[in-house]
């Protein structure tokens, strides 16, 4: 947990994260670094990273390959502001990446434009939890 403390999380915050996700007890500092680096790689600020991980501590024990698939799916669709996206709804990092495609297909069928679908992801994605 050194990495989390050095990043700036308080003991209380770490305890809360562990309470919600006991698997955090088993992860290494390398695992934590990998996740933080992925979030930094999509331009998340420190504040955004802290919000994402405190709100959704399951990101820390998520499959890296699955998280990357989610990121690529959104990028492919044209969602470029991933920091905003995941800071607004940290739980998007837990969804099955195939849900992104099925949401896009469904909304396209309903006649929504690409920009409207992007708006859904940016502003209303809490419906996807």
């Amino acid at each position, binding site marked *: 947990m050194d990495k989390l403390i050095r990043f700036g999380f308080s003991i209380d*915050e770490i305890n*809360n994260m562990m*309470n*919600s*996700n*006991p698997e955090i007890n088993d992860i290494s500092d390398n695992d934590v670094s990998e996740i933080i680096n992925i979030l930094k790689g999509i331009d998340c*600020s420190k*504040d*955004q990273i*802290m*919000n994402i991980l*405190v*709100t*959704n501590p*399951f990101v820390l024990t998520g499959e890296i390959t699955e998280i990357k698939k989610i990121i690529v799916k959104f990028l492919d669709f044209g969602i*470029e*502001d991933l*920091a*905003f996206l995941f*800071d*607004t*709804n940290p*739980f998007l990092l*837990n969804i*099955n990446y195939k849900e992104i495609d099925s949401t896009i297909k469904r909304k396209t069928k309903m006649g929504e*434009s690409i*920009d*409207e679908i*992007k*708006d859904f992801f*940016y*502003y209303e994605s*809490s419906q996807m*939890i």
Partner: protein
Amino acid sequence: MLDEYMKEIGYSTEQIELIEDSYPLKSYAESTLLYCMKNLVNYLHRNTFDNSDIISITTTIPQIISMSIEEIKIKITEFIDHSISKINIYQMIKEYPYIIEMSIQRIRNKYQIFEELGFTLSSTNNIFIHCPSILNVDPSSIRNHYQFFKDYGYKQDEIHTIFETIPQLFLLSTTKIQKRLEEYSAIGFKKDEIVKITYYLPEGLIIEKEEIMNRLKFMGDYGYQLNDIITIIKSVPMILSDYFTSSLEEKWLVLEEIGFSKDDVVSITKQNPYLLLYSKELLKDNYTHFVKRGFYHKEVLEMIKDTPLLLGFHKNNIDKKLDAYKDFGLFDYIKNHSSCLLYSLNYILKRKKYIKNNEWEDLFLNDVDFHKKYKVTRKQIIGG
């Protein structure tokens, strides 16, 4: 003399007859049998076995009485060499005495198979300690079971976790396991959801569907419909683990203490099932924080009913947003549009230079409407 000795230990007449009639002991002279018996009993007594253990072991495999103590020690040493403690080995023998009969080669082969399948020594030992009869399972059956899960879609670490948690799965036929998986499918779960669910609840692979649904009945008793329960499990299958199911009631209670009705609790946790994974202290703390920031109790309830995600958000994150939006006189607006507090602050504040006539509520427009009104795209706003 043998009979008297055995009766002293606690053997019944039938048990004595069983042992005396078994092979190869029936060919032994009584004095030889008595000698072997005493040796074995003394050895086992010195190593945590009580009389009932001894009776159980010797009536299960009477031929152990004909084994020399050295032979028994060699088997035990083999397990010690694989890092199992003596206490655990003795427990394994008590539970499954047949391992004493196994050849060293057979024991080593078992370890090799598990190593082949990617299990660590520690995981393998956990499996053997908790289900020693696996040591007698045919190697091809072990490989088949592993492959069965792989073919279904489980990843290696998921397979390892499942077998380490429920090693008895190796003893269940893959047909039966398949049947369980089909039952989940019949409820409405897709393959990848079933993998997730059974990863968090491996015992779900060995108990009947009705029993799983009974376990979730208490959610139904609280007020969730079956569809709600299925939706929640799909999002947060870890809720099926004992760690969380045992604490659900206290979370419902704390949400009710905060002021939500039962219907509200069902509604907000349906919309954000992760609320059921936060500690009750965190739920209360996050609610209290909104009150400390100047919202009335009823306002906070309405905000969370409207935007359940808020109850899990980082307090510092909420604080920064409230501090920023207060400067724009948006405090009252937020009470009725609480989803604004979700939007990432960095980007929202970048919009302020485009806003005219102090129409600060426009900060929260979606990109399409913001562009319609202010003729500027997200890309342009981010680019500055």
